[in-house]
């Protein structure tokens, strides 16, 4: 009984640690990648688009972190950051290499 309890405790601790790591690192990645894509797409001068991306990046970061802690499973939290990061990142790279983006 006691053993199960401490196992659950340990499991809970690891899950928290994992979520914190995903939120901080994954959220930072998603915030940057999204801001970069925005800076490629926004219809304004390059420096203004970059500035806009930077201004918004902290809001995106905050939203991403909240999402990681709001969803039920850690797996879903990870996927929820990795999948959009990959997709948005792929689009950004495509724009960069096809020369659409600066």
């Amino acid at each position: 009984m006691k053993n199960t309890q401490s196992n659950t405790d340990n499991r809970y601790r690891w899950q928290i640690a994992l979520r914190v790591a995903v939120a901080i690192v994954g959220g930072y990645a998603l915030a940057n990648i999204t801001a970069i894509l925005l800076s490629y797409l926004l219809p304004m001068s390059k420096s203004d688009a970059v500035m806009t991306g930077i201004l918004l990046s902290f809001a995106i970061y905050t939203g991403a972190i909240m999402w990681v802690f709001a969803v039920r499973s850690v797996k879903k939290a990870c996927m929820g950051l990795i999948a959009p990061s990959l997709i948005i990142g792929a689009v950004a790279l495509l724009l960069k290499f096809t020369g659409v983006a600066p």
Partner: protein
Amino acid sequence: MKNGFRQSMSWVHTWGGLSVGWILFFVFLTGTLGYFDTEIDRWMKPELPKDTSTMAQSLAVAEARLQEKAEGAERWFISPPTNRDNPNLRIFWQMPGKDGERGVRGNELLDSTTGDALSGRATGGGQTLYQMHYALHYLPTNVAYWIVGISSMFMLLAIVTGVVIHKKIFKDFFTFRPQKGQRSWLDMHNLLSVTALPFHFMITYSGLIFFAFTYMPLIVASSYGTGDDAERKFFDELFAETDKVEPANSPANLASLSAMVAIAESRWGENQVRYLDITNPGDANARVSIGRQLNSPLRASPELVFDGATGELLNDKAAATSAPRTVRDTFLGLHEGLFANTALRWLYFLSGLLGTIMIATGMILWTVKRRPAQLKKTNGPDFGHRLVESLNLGTIVGLPIAIAAYFWANRLLPVDYAARSEWEIHVLFLVWLATLLYPLSRNIMRGWVDLLWVAAAAYGLLPIINAVTTDRHLANSLAQGDWLFAGVDLTFLTTGILFAIAAIKLQGRLRQAPQAARDAANNKKVISNTTLVAQDVSAQSPEAT
């Protein structure tokens, strides 16, 4: 994770807030004092005279001194005493650097009537105090920026989750249940948070934007590439430095600065010139940019750009440029509040204090909530709980004491002591260290009373120390109508009185409770002194009884 969205967000709010709470308290308190940085500067250099000169005198004195100190400079900068930020004439210069490196810089305060450099006692002043809120101290600046940035990100998260977890944000705002232990702390935390919510959000988000290029370098790099040149290209484009010219390397006398200022004043009105920014002085390609006072939250000044050799007006630059840059400048301008008049400045100061106390109540709430359960433990409270309690006391009361010690050091260290400005700061941190260690030797609630009394004395005595060590004491300042000195002294006095009231209240509460606490302690046969007194507070809250 836990059940329900609100519970998860509540968890993030609690633990995110706690983990950086002490740093945030430090940042908020020193930053709040920054709204009176110039006033504190002046108080800490009581020798400086009041500047009463005219613009023409200031310009003549500044130009002569710059000619003498910094001929062949890349840049001169003159701030005449026309606004709160510059009570005395200030000059700055930067010499050309070798191979792309930054050249030697210097700056001086000048007496505009005699033209001599003003020295006054060496002191960190209000500037050092204010700079600590983003650059901390004893740390490389980049490390400090990141520590403050990460803490600010946590703050932003705590603000947003704090709003989200409020089911009834409006109703809670009008709820205050005093003398109810944990409830009262929660109500107070809510009240302070919601009252100044727009301020808290603005100050945190704009704080992040200040160092956004450091925190989010990849966004710039993805469009401009990496390295110093790429960065410079971005900044030049963003800030539209179109009037930048290289020196022609043929000497030419600088045209009359006062004629240029006259043109600026005829457009903007008298005393509207904030600064003169002169590039390549003494060169045929000299440029003089004259900036206007800040009259709105937009941080940038409108500028008139003159040809420095001919005196011809080249460009009338509006402060507002592209939308994204204007958003950025407005955020930064709101953060710094340089445009604020006296009334608004006090509002800034009070909002900052509300934020500081909000952080403090949040951290106290964390311990009050957990104390009853902690006291039921057979070996007394956990190490973690005791650590948080000690850090809370050593920071919430300890840091204000340390800041008072900084002011004491300013008055008591010998005026001609060479290392005095370094030692002012060392005193601050040594005193803070002492207050952080103090709870180890004293049970926590008695420790609160002790340190609150120390803080009351530390601030209450400052006007007296000032009266003994200078001739600008309170009675004198009031008689002369010197509201700056009187204001600083009176603020110290008020702070001291508030700390004394807090000490008396807490003392009274501890005296009321001992019987209940003793009974509880006897029942459980708890001998530890820490536990005994900690019971005092738990006896107050309905949950514990």
